[in-house]
């Protein structure tokens, strides 16, 4: 293991161009090789390497007892992971698509989230549930849900989602090391997006948001699949003369108030953007808590650019549903810029 670690250190030092899927694969491989209690299992994750190939090659490298296919039953995948974790292992399991995690909902909410608390901390469940989530890949019904709001409302779970390949690596490594259960949401339409980066999981912490781009006029809050869209929108807004600060939340629960509040108190305006339906979506929490903490700093209401309040559309209509650069720019326009002078700034 020392040799592997050394080789890793060398490899990590050199920036490489890597997709998010490959970065996740690397994270799993490195975790498997550095900690023999780590296991990877789920539907088609072994021989096939997963339908998105995130587990490609792992069964061959680490053997069928550490990386394996299960029978087709999500509740049992999560439930047996719980039993394994009670017995000292660290399972990182895969749900094949977002909506196919719903059969495991009872195991997730009633046990995974609560067992540590139930036993006054005696039982730890260092489990990662990887879920490819969101749309944008032309998938048919049930293959494109964004269900972060269900998990973030469940105390005891951590919910994390990467926006870039290097974060995908770092956050997954940290999620696997984390003593708490982590719902790890992988924005499937970013699986093939590339970044040239050094893979390293010690330089950032999973529960802090990151300012991806600095700006002074408006804070644009994104996560997972919408981070890239937000960056594009920020760039487009610059051409309209607006300076946009983009925050990538990374950890949806717990929420990093410090970073976001600091930004919003500087800019006075915020837009939060996600794919999930707006009503009761994660953006509601973001808007509600920021409105409360930054009330006197706000020049305009916090706007949400989110999916409509409809079931996820069929492939040919999904472009209308997904938050687009245009829709974000429209939201910027609605941030009451013209009113600024006529209103007292409420900050004391």
């Amino acid at each position, binding site marked *: 293991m020392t040799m592997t670690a050394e080789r890793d250190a060398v490899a990590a030092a050199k920036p490489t161009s890597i997709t998010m899927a490959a970065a996740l694969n690397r994270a799993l491989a490195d975790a498997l090789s550095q900690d023999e209690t780590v296991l990877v299992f789920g*539907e*088609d994750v*072994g*021989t*096939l*390497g997963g*339908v998105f190939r995130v587990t490609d090659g792992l069964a061959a490298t680490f053997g069928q007892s550490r990386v394996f*296919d*299960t*029978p*087709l*039953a999500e*509740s*049992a995948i999560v439930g047996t992971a719980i039993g394994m974790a009670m017995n000292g292992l660290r399972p990182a399991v895969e749900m094949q698509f977002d*909506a*196919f995690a*719903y*059969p495991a909902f009872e195991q997730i909410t009633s046990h995974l989230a609560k067992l540590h608390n139930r036993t006054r901390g005696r039982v730890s469940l260092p489990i990662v549930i990887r879920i490819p989530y969101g749309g944008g890949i*032309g*998938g*048919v*019904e*049930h*293959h494109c849900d964004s269900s972060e709001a269900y998990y973030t409302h469940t105390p005891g779970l951590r919910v994390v989602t990467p926006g870039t390949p290097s974060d995908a690596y770092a956050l997954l490594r940290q999620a696997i090391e984390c003593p708490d259960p982590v719902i790890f949401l992988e924005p499937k339409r970013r699986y093939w997006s590339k970044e040239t980066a050094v893979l390293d999981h010690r330089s950032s912490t999973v529960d802090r948001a990151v300012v991806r781009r600095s700006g002074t006029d408006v804070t644009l809050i994104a996560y997972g699949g919408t981070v890239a869209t937000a960056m594009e929108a920020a760039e487009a807004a610059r051409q309209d003369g607006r300076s946009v600060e983009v925050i990538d939340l990374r950890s949806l629960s717990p929420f990093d108030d410090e970073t976001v509040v600091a930004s919003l108190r500087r800019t006075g305006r915020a837009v939060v953007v996600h794919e999930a339906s707006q*009503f009761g979506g994660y953006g509601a929490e973001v808007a509600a808590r920021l409105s409360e903490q930054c009330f006197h700093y706000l020049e305009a209401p916090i706007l949400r650019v989110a999916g*409509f*309040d*409809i*079931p996820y*559309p*069929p*492939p*040919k*209509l999904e472009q*209308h*549903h997904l938050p687009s650069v*245009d*829709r974000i720019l*429209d939201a910027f326009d609605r941030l009451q810029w013209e009113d600024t002078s006529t209103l007292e700034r409420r900050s004391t």
Partner: protein
Amino acid sequence: MTFLAPVGNDAGAGGGGESDRFLPSEIPMALLDPAGRVLPSSELAMPPADVLLELYRQMVLGRRFDSQATALTKQGRLAVYPSARGQEACEIGAVLALRPQDWLFPTYRDSMAIVARGVDPVEALTLLRGDWHCGYDPYVHNVAPQCTPLATNTVHAVGLAHAARIKGEDTVALVMLGDGGTSEGDTHEALNFAAVWKAPVVFLIQNNGYAISVPLSKQTAAPSLAHKGIGYGVRSVKIDGNDPAAVYATVDAAIRSAAAGDGPVLIEAITYRIEAHTNADDASRYRDPAEVQAWLARDPVSRLRAHLTERGLLDDDAVAAIESAAEDRAGELRRRMNVDSELDPADLFRYVYAAQTPALARQARELAEEIDRAEEQR
């Protein structure tokens, strides 16, 4: 040792005595061998000649439909297509055994069955084309929408069938599922509810040996999937799923018995998917081409053709006529699928609730305005 019997609690009821009637035969039941020869001493009744001919015709049409659909994925005309090639005996045999009033609960793989049931092929492909989640009206041919979340349709079928009984209607529900789907909790709950309610449901497991890449040996350690039935008190049958005559005869008998009030039936049909899981899958990652070859030798279509030809019920002309009809339909389908579908984004907001809510009306307006603005800018 009868001391448990007289006690009032029905906990001790049942007992193994009648167990056997729930268990499947050791060897899959069949009527025709792979060469189309009639097998002796089967428990199944050979379907009449006209049914066999119709089975053959529909299987040829179905296979051609299936290959056309696969071709359409290559041209980007379908978002995805899960082929049922090799499973025609199940797809067609089951559907032809249904009576008009019966219901079919298909999965994503059963487009062929849906078309055989009478659904317009373009409507059947609406889901996989990416136009809408279901393209047909379920009530026209009594076909539920194709179900994607595995095994979740099993409980729907039980509910529908039980409702029919409550209403005094003579309706049986046939639900299709795969070997992988048998591992989901819903399958178990459905079999149990059906048995307790004596609901007229036929569960048809198409055991094609794989759930995507996962082989049956990683899915179950049971002697067979049909052996699950006894755990619910559901009569179970294991059949050769590549023998169209056997599939028809078994489903037909199951439907009659379910309709007669004898409760649900579980059928495991042993078959094989010749193509990859879908066009997006790479089957070479998990199975040996030799295995596919071996199964090609057990092809359901040529098996029935051999049988019918041997019996003088089919000649080369008739075969050619059926093939040409299949070709015509495929051409027609190709033509229709090559026309870009007209989709109305406002549909996104129309069917969420029976009456549109004010919030959805507002969102629909916002989207319409956005689209207008975008078009103006062009």
